[in-house]
């Protein structure tokens, strides 16, 4: 009786897992299949779509812009958030709750809603400051706040911040020295975690760039999709692979990843 039950459960489990695996792996496999198709029926597999990426200057420009945005955003979020979080823990714990709510707020405001309010702000910035695509980093810092906050919060709670900073201060260190040479080296993995998550978010961002008329990686892929499906899917595969490598790196960095971000 019990053995039969156990066998039923095992059959049920493996059936479910097999169906799900098929559902989730097929589209990715199909993408690879599509990107390596040759021209014409029975044409051999080819990597032409991948090498063709180089021959689209707009696309290359968008890739470069997205990578720059990713770097600026990760650094900006870190510079904005880390000193604030350390300062709050040490001196003004009263505002900790407020900062947490603000940091997690971008998760509850859909990007498509945020962009409606950003449109006039960016109109002003593009006229009066700069119309470079890199200005997107200003709002991307907001988008990555929830992930950077969670990663850094985990790192900060893993150390005795007060003792460390008081010891450093007693030895004559100023606040910048405390942060750069005492706190950060003690939470490298959390800092790296925050950076990698930020990079992953920025490389996948479409909504805001598209509606503010900037051509970042995802917008370029989407535009190219109408002209040359093969190449655009090749870029999609490549960027997916890149993000996957980032996430694998992330799991090696240690420090368990905190929950999930929402899909745009």
């Amino acid at each position: 009786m019990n053995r039969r039950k156990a066998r039923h459960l095992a059959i049920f489990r493996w059936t479910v897992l097999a169906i799900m695996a098929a559902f989730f792996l097929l589209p990715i496999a199909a993408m690879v299949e599509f990107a390596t198709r040759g021209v014409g029926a029975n044409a051999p597999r080819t990597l032409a779509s991948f090498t063709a990426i180089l021959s689209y200057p707009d696309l290359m420009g968008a890739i470069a812009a997205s990578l720059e945005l990713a770097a600026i955003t990760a650094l900006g979020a870190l510079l904005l958030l880390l000193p604030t979080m350390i300062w709050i823990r040490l001196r003004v714990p009263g505002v900790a709750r407020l900062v947490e709510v603000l940091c997690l707020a971008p998760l509850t405001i859909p990007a498509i809603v945020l962009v409606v309010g950003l449109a006039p702000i960016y109109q002003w910035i593009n006229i009066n400051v700069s119309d470079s695509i890199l200005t997107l980093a200003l709002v991307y810092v907001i988008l990555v706040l929830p992930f950077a906050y969670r990663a850094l919060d985990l790192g900060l709670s893993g150390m005795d911040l007060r003792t460390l900073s008081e010891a450093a201060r007693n030895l004559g260190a100023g606040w910048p020295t405390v942060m750069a040479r005492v706190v950060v080296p003690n939470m490298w993995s959390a800092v790296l975690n925050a950076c990698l998550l930020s990079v992953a978010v920025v490389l996948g961002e479409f909504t805001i760039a598209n509606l503010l008329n900037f051509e970042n990686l995802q917008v370029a892929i989407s535009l190219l999709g109408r002209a040359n499906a093969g190449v655009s899917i090749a870029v999609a595969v490549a960027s997916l692979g890149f993000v996957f490598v980032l996430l694998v790196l992330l799991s090696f960095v240690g420090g368990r990843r905190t929950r999930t971000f929402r899909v745009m």
Partner: protein
Amino acid sequence: MAALVNPEKSLAGRPIQGGLRLPLPWLGTVPFLGYVALFLVLPAAIVVAGAFAGDHGPTLANLAALTQPYIVQSFVNSVVLSAASASIGAVAGAVLAYAVASGDPRGPVRRLVTAGCGVLSQFGGVTLAFAFIATIGGEGFITLWLQHHGINIYANGVWLYQLSGLTLVYAYFQIPLMVIVFLPALDSIRPQWREATASLGGASWHYWRYVAGPILAPAFLGCALLLFANAFSAYATAAALINQGGIIVPLQISNALSSEVGLAQANVASALALGMVLVVAAVTGLYTVLQRRTARWLP
């Protein structure tokens, strides 16, 4: 010798409050709060203000515009899409979560599935749309393979670029999200409850109907609501899949924003966005209530 008494060194011996001598410690939070005010709070305020702004002072005309049939239709479509993809995601996700939870808690299957779900739940936008176009689009892998075997999945029209297609594509990130949020609830079901049911003479059905079911129900509904909000606010996937028209609210917003008509449309976009936020807020509120009910039995 004079170097030994430079002012920086002499500060070192003082108590920590002596440091930078900022007038108030909270000044240190000003850069962060200022930044967030400028790029998060201000846009939100602009949306709310824009919804009530007209050419000649405050007006309700933008909200009245929401009652136009095509906008009402887009709200209905959005709700249908979100409800359908949330239901599919919740049921399939719960089944997958159960398949995982009933196995070895430290086994490789579980680690693989949870890691995979973590990645896939964030997978959306252009790449996801293209993945499905490559799979079941007109020239897709499966479409061609089935055609080869005499089956035409688009005999009744190309449904991939319609609401039913979107539902299927959304399931791709809804199911993994459900696994992530529902697995903790399944994990906190104690095996003793099942044994207790059995020792009282209850069969498997009794256990699910009178014990596990009622305990898991609020958690399940709460997770389904989360999925609903997730689908309701998604834009990128639909935009990449559907080039023309505005069958759902996010696409309507982007149409209103990028149309050439000008400012009046921007205010309609604000009104639409406000409507969207209200729906999401209501759903999230309900979710919080259900979370509290869940907490009564499950830690």
